[in-house]
């Protein structure tokens, strides 16, 4: 059971504090913050103890979400609860940041009051909670220049009118009560996280995909939704389904509410989505990618009178889609002084980060099938041949919209009964890099 729940900003301001059992002092909050800021890099922060009080916390949206308990509770439960609290806060407030929590603290108190009683979790389901939550969310300015930079996130380049801007999904679920909101929309996102290691010889050493199908629902009522996946979708290694376009995953798990009676034959998921965000299905694929890894790197490293050249060629193998927010981190030897670079286009930037001993090369847009190259010249005094060892693995982070690595697609999305009026359905795909490492 949970004694207290509190939310702190990254600077330690108290945003939310609720004591459920009266067993612990309010001082616990400052004790926690002192402990968490005093931790050294290698100490695990997730669970900390002070006297007989245990603190469990998660970091989300730059905030500390903390629960304290005096019992030896299940860590999975408490961590999942805090994650769920953060997710609900995001659902109700629209976005997750210090500002939105500050503005909606009354709402969050109300949520907490219904979610937990005397330290015991009562319910976290949006369907039940929405009957009890009365406070309306205060959103920060709905449109700002900052949001504009994200508009292209889900590939808005051609069909502006047909594509939902990314901010559409970051509004509070309850806003239909107010006059300005009230669009009946449902978003189905297929999100995959890719973690890849490519060896120095170009061989794919590790490739894991963690994927999920998420639904974000703004429909006030929706009796049933049917989501059709690829018919060739197979789970596990033994199942072989013909040739060609089979989509395979290793493991797959579903949300409790998903009905699977048509899944075996037709690969249809049936669900009655509740308002807010839900993960309907999670799947993993390891050690195998049905397509080539999206990026390869052909580096050459040369030494030249106390300075050093790195030449990076970076071809993008996925022809169909444009990668966004690509950043490449190239480690450099200790003691590097300065960097001069030759990049292929002006929107790219590269900088030498001395603190991290690395060059950060960022590419805002990377068209499919293109090949970019860059030449970095780093000045390193007292360069030895061994220093080249330090030019360690290059890591990349990127986003690939409209793309799934497993090939999972949503064939159709049907709502029944058909929603009256203007209900809109959006299906979006995106692949993120969880960790994309290329050894040199």
């Amino acid at each position, binding site marked *: 059971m949970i004694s207290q729940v509190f939310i702190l900003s990254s600077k330690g301001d108290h945003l939310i504090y609720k*004591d459920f*059992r009266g067993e612990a002092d309010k001082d616990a909050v400052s004790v926690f913050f002192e402990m968490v800021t005093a931790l050294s890099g290698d100490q695990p922060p*997730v669970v900390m103890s002070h006297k007989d009080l245990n603190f469990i916390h998660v*970091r989300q949206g730059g905030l500390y979400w903390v629960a304290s308990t005096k019992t030896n509770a299940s860590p999975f439960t408490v961590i999942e609860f805090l994650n769920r609290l953060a997710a609900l806060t995001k659902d109700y407030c629209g976005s997750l940041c210090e500002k939105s929590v500050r503005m909606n603290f009354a709402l969050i108190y109300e949520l907490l009051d219904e979610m937990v*009683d005397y330290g015991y*979790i009562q319910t976290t389901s949006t369907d039940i909670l929405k009957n009890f939550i*009365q406070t309306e969310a205060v959103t920060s300015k709905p449109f700002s220049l900052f949001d504009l930079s994200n508009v292209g996130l889900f590939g808005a380049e051609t069909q502006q009118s047909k594509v939902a801007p990314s901010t559409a999904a970051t509004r509070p679920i309850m806003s239909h009560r107010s006059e300005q909101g009230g669009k009946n929309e449902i978003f189905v996102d297929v999100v995959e996280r890719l973690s890849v290691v490519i060896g120095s010889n170009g061989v794919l050493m590790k490739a894991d995909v963690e994927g999920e199908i998420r639904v974000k629902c703004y429909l006030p009522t929706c009796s049933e939704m049917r989501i059709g996946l690829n018919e060739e979708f197979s789970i596990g290694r033994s199942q072989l389904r013909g040739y060609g376009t089979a989509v395979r995953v290793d*493991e797959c798990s579903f949300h409790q509410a998903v009905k699977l009676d048509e899944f075996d034959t037709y690969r249809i998921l049936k669900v009655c989505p509740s308002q807010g965000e839900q993960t309907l299905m999670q799947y993993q694929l390891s050690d195998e990618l049905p397509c080539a890894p999206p990026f390869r790197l052909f580096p050459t490293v040369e030494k030249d009178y106390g300075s050093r050249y790195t030449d990076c060629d970076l071809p993008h193998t996925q022809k169909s889609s444009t990668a966004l927010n690509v950043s490449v981190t190239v480690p450099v030897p200790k003691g590097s002084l300065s960097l001069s670079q030759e990049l292929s286009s002006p929107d790219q930037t590269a900088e030498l980060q001395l603190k991290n001993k690395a060059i950060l090369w960022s590419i805002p847009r990377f068209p499919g099938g293109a090949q970019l190259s860059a030449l970095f010249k780093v000045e390193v005094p007292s360069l030895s041949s061994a220093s080249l060892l330090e030019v360690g693995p290059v890591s990349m982070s990127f986003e690939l919209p409209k793309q799934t690595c497993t090939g999972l697609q949503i064939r159709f999305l049907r709502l029944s009964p058909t929603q009256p009026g203007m209900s809109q359905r959006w299906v979006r795909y995106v692949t993120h890099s969880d960790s994309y490492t290329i050894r040199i």
Partner: protein
Amino acid sequence: MPYFGSEETVKDLKRALSNPNVQTDRLRYRNYIIRVIRSMTQGLDVSSLFMDMVKASATVDIVQKKLVYLYMVTYASRKPDLALLAINTLRKDCADPNPMVRGLALRNMCNFRMPGITEYIQQPILSGLRDKASYVRRVAVLGCAKMHSLQPNTEIDPSMVNELYSLLRDPDPVVMVNSLRALEEILRDEGGVVINKPIAHHLLNRLKDLDSWAQSEVLTFLLRYRPRSNDELFDILSLLDDFLHSAHAPVMAATLRLFLHLATAHPAVQADALLRVHGPLLATCGSASRELRFAGLCHVQQVLRSQPALYGNHYKRFFCGYSEPGYIKFRKMEILVELVNDENVALVLEELKSYCTDVSTELAQAAIAAIGRIGRTYNEKCLDILTGLLALKQEHIASAVIQTFRDLVWFCPKSSVAVCKAVEGCDESLQDDEGKQALLWLLGEYGEQISGAPYVLEGFIDSLKVELCSVVKMELLTAAVKLFLCRPAEMQDILGRLLHYCIEEESDMCVRDRALMYYRLLQSGVDETRKVLLGPKSDPSMTVLTGRPEEPVNIWASSFNTLGPLCGTVACLENTSAENSVQQLHSAEEKDGAEEFKLSPPEQTLRTEAIEEELSCIADAAEELNLTMGPPLSHEAFERLWLELQVAHQQALGIPRPAETLETLQAAFQLVKIQTLAFTRTDAVPWKAYMYSRAGGTLILAELLQGAPEESESIGNLLVSVKQQPENQQAIRSFFSVLTNVLQTLSSHGSQN
């Protein structure tokens, strides 16, 4: 943190709240109340507004009501007299036709933590228990627990307990789970809610209707139930089967724990469960939430203690992600070291090698140490990597490599040739104390094989004046004397200078004493010195811990899905002072063991450490089974009781008496809260031991007896007789399981060595 000008703020708020214009304007009124709550959260003392807030509670605006209640609950204990004024409004709300209002009022009324509130809440709670809205019943059920906690020492109302037990059959799942929770709290002194066969099966059947939070909690409650027969056990296990694959990590973990617990006597079933759950557990290790990932990794580590082979093929899942925080990377490296086998060693080493140049010093050093651990089994490959790293000439890397070398040659003396070759000429890049100590130790130990050793030492001696760390100086003394014994010609002069400096000019007592000791030792003759310093050491290759012995699942099963694995070695729940002192003793011993690692015969240290570690796990279990030592029992009192009481239970354990010393046995039992009173001599036949413990209000006396050895050949069988006052079968069962666990642990270690 009080803000500057806080009094002004409170005054402003007070003025605004009592302003009739504000009170009539609903939105403005609510806004001011929001400001009060905001100040309260920030730590401002707004208790002086209590009166105004009580007035504000009489409203139809439910949002405002909720905010005011939040305020009142926070300050009720400080203003009990004013809080009583609010009770009337709340009691009126408890009779509201809207169930939401009823529930809200009842919940908050029960949350007032102040003396004297009970008389006002008793009636509303009782009527709430019979309310037709499940929302109100949920609140009322937990209200019973709250009421009990307000007056902990009063009699428990049996009619309320009965009512709560009957609410276990409530159609609403949350009411059912809340009744369990409330009963657990109310009956805590009697050992918590009773899970008998009908209740257990009722809970199991309802499990599917519950949401994931309630499921994992009910599964935890079910840990208390012991099936009567094997048939029942397997029925339960097959019911639980689906939940092992639950998409919710908490349910999966709770089910696995229950599985392991129920199948204590069936290791094959446990192994099968672990095998089947490895997929979901791996999925948590790759979850989007870092904290969940961490929890998953810690639990994988536990599973690996018993089944090291289970994750061998999935080693790539434990490669560190580029953006992961340090604490996850450390865990992953620890796991990688455990997973290494002939097939994956090359790839794992390549991966670890790429971490060695990481920008984080700690991470790089941990990666180097991990390579060293693997090097105990896969010697050559690791030595190549480590030697290559020395060429980087970076302080923190060199230091970590040298320390790893030191540990490696201790375990694998055969690697000394390569190490000696690598060590030459890396002294310039060492700056930190630990690295210097390690280098000095290597120079002293293998000085013969390192041609430049005397010159390196000379360098150290030249800079002695600026050396601050006394441990480095002591290590230097030892190394110089050792080296002198094998290379006297080169060292004589250097050693003379060192001893002179340390005796005449050094201000640190320890260093001076050490120098004097070596000086006198040398005076008594070189042969004597050699005998002392280079005397035979224990054979370390005997203790190479390649592939730790697989531990039985039961040793860690009880701490699965608790905070224990996440806290690492630090015991996170120390409640009783008795346990504290044991713990302190325990950790002090451990520290000694670590420091004397090189001096004492290592197998002894390692073995006791391992035993202690396992025992502390059982100790956790013992805590859960509520064994306590209680006040000490005198020998006379024990004897009197023993003669008075009948034997309550007698059982042959099927384990021989552990071959440990009596002190070890006694310490082991103490750790699990069993006090030993008397032993016969070790070689006596029959061998007897008397011990006692307390659990759930009863006193348990026990006798261990091992008959004459010719009776049962070489394997003596321990016979345990237990007497008890007053009767409590459950306590005896838990006592037995703890006792068996301890003896098993001890005897398995005894037989290994």
